[in-house]
């Protein structure tokens, strides 16, 4: 972690749960609109991957 913030119990717990604090700080550097746009872009990409997987599995069944 390249930041000066002290690791408080909540931050330590988050790290122990596998949360990457550097990514968290990066997202906080974005505006709320950027955060929302990137989320929906990611959700759309996940959906496309899911559909591609379904098409692939359907193709393998023939």
């Amino acid at each position, binding site marked *: 972690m390249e930041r000066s*913030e*002290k690791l*408080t119990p*909540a*931050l330590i*717990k*988050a790290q*122990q*749960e596998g*949360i990457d*604090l550097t*990514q*968290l*700080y990066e*997202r*906080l550097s974005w*505006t*709320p*609109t950027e*955060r*929302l*746009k990137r*989320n*929906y*872009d*990611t*959700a*759309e990409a*996940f*959906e496309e991957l899911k559909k591609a997987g379904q098409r692939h599995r359907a193709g393998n069944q023939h």
Partner: protein
Amino acid sequence: MLATNIEKLLKALYDQGVEFVIIGGAAAVLHGSAYVTGDLDVCYSREKENLIKLATALAPFKASLRGAPKNLPFRLDADSLKSGLNFTLTTDLGDLDLLGEVAGLGGYADVLSFSEELELFGMRCKVLTLAGLITSKRAVSRAKDLRLLPELEALLEIRRSQNRS
């Protein structure tokens, strides 16, 4: 595309003057969470005037009940909103969940007291606070909600430390 559609959906609500607070996954994302959501959840005021505004705002987007049989009659108007409470909708612009109450918080007035305004796509939108999100996620207590808690609590801690400095 989805981001553009959600922007249009928010703009439709905003332009019609609908009283709503963004909640759920979108609120978590707005506060910096890595959670990924494909829909938009809002808590809405159940005042009659607001139900009319809400139905008017959504009218162009062919809202229907998500997952319901295609032959199940449903028309989104103030009366149908009045007769229900929580609606999971699909629209031409994406999935939209309308909640009259939020677990652990209560109705719109309670949720409003746990909201803050954020600038979104050039609009000032009310968003459930991190403290409100944490309270509601704890109350719902599903595995997927509980998994979010450490990150939300870390975000709250960072917010508090930034406010102190």
